[in-house]
């Protein structure tokens, strides 16, 4: 891993062409936000460290149905611009609009994972659910993170999120717009881990540290559960007593609403 250089707005990056978050003055390239600079074949671009989510073509986002208008859904994608999901992009079925109530497909406040297929110059955003990975997200819980930190939550080649999924036995969907959907037996632990990643995103070797944390919480959780089920438990009474005071105890064994 190499540490990339931190640049501030107005910093000179080099001579060449400008990519994302950079601007040109003559043939000189300058940064236009706080971020990390990168260069590829004479093109300088900056990965920003802050900012709201700006929709980009090809991004997978988690959104919420805000409105249903005749043959399309308006989706809130955690951005100043709302996205449009037309019915033809939502399903392959033939639907007779005069006879069907669209809420049977997607209702108000339903969560979906969808792909952005186009963003116009005036920021009209079009979504599609035709891709295999796109679906309606039923149940579960939602965490909001800073969109700039999403790459860290996903990790290198998805390593971070895969690790959390496996160790906590949950389903997790990370939207590029900073909305993370979690569902499973150990939602609490997974959410805790995600918040921890966001907070400590700059720490080296974070995946291993988070793994340690999650595994510890999981073993503690198992012990509390076996106790609650009334099974005899011989080893290490003292530790159990401590665990029972943890706030996690009440949250578990209950159904998610």
């Amino acid at each position, binding site marked *: 891993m190499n*540490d990339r250089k931190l640049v*501030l*707005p*107005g910093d000179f990056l080099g001579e060449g062409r400008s990519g994302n978050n950079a601007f040109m003055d003559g043939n000189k390239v300058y940064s236009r936000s706080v971020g990390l600079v990168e260069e590829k074949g004479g093109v300088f671009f900056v990965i920003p460290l802050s900012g709201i989510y700006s929709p980009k073509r090809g991004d997978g986002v988690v959104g919420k149905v805000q409105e249903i208008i005749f043959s399309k859904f308006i989706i809130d994608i955690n951005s*100043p611009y709302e996205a449009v999901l037309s019915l033809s992009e939502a399903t392959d079925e033939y639907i007779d609009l005069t006879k069907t109530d669209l809420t049977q497909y997607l209702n108000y406040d339903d969560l979906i994972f969808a792909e952005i297929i186009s963003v116009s110059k005036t920021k009209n955003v079009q979504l599609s659910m035709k891709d295999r990975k796109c679906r309606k997200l039923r149940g579960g819980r939602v965490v909001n993170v800073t969109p700039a930190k999403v790459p860290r939550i996903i990790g290198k080649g998805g390593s971070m999120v895969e690790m959390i999924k496996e160790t906590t036995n949950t389903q997790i969907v990370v939207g590029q717009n900073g909305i993370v959907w979690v569902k499973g037996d150990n939602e609490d632990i997974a959410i805790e881990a995600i918040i921890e990643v966001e907070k400590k*995103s700059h720490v080296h070797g974070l995946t291993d540290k988070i793994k340690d944390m999650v595994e510890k919480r999981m073993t503690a959780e198992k012990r509390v559960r076996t106790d609650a089920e009334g099974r005899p438990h011989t080893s290490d009474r003292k530790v159990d007593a401590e665990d029972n005071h943890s706030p996690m105890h009440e949250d578990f064994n209950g159904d998610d609403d």
Partner: protein
Amino acid sequence: MTELELIKNGKRTDGRAFDELRPMEAKVGVLKNADGSAMFRIGNTVAVAGVFGPRKVFPKHQEVSDRAILRVRYNMAPFATSERSRPGISRRSTEISMVIREAIVPSLFLEEFPKTAVDVYIEVLQADASTRCAGLNAASLALADAGIPMRDLVASCSAGKIAGTVVLDIAGKEDTEGELDLPVAFYKKQNMITLLQMDGITNKEEIKEIVKLAIKGCDTVYQEQRSALKRKYMAESAIEV
């Protein structure tokens, strides 16, 4: 007031040299709920700025289809001055909001976020001269913190004339008893002045000298702003993606 009171033995009332700024402090990320925020202190003047957005424009008729609009509100807390000031908008705060807005707009790439609004709220918590400069400095930092694309940070400070001498960063008694106060906002990289106001009477030669001194002060402010931003984001530069 006589000359003796404002300048003694080549020093000013607070012991500063003629071209010396008051001690400064800048901090980025001071408000939890804002998208970007910053505090800027110079001497006894303290300003906090919070940035919200880009977000949807309400009322909708203010929306512009090809760029974001920037809305700035400068407000002085009733307890900021020694005599309590009436809360709420005034002729003075409306004017300052406008000049700060116009000093910042040229630095931003507002066309990047069409149909949205960027709101900047500046609160002056303690006032001891140059509140518009402190507010402007905090606002520029907060905008950078919010990730609004910009050409450069804007730095601002004032210069003026007391007891017949040109000095930098008017404060305290110098403000009320001095002869001239001239706030300036400056973009270092563009070599451009975006705020220039004057309260007092002078001549052509002298004004050149005062502006030159103010620009020198802006440079010092600019360095302080940069190090404040670096302090917050340095840790995150070790990120691996």
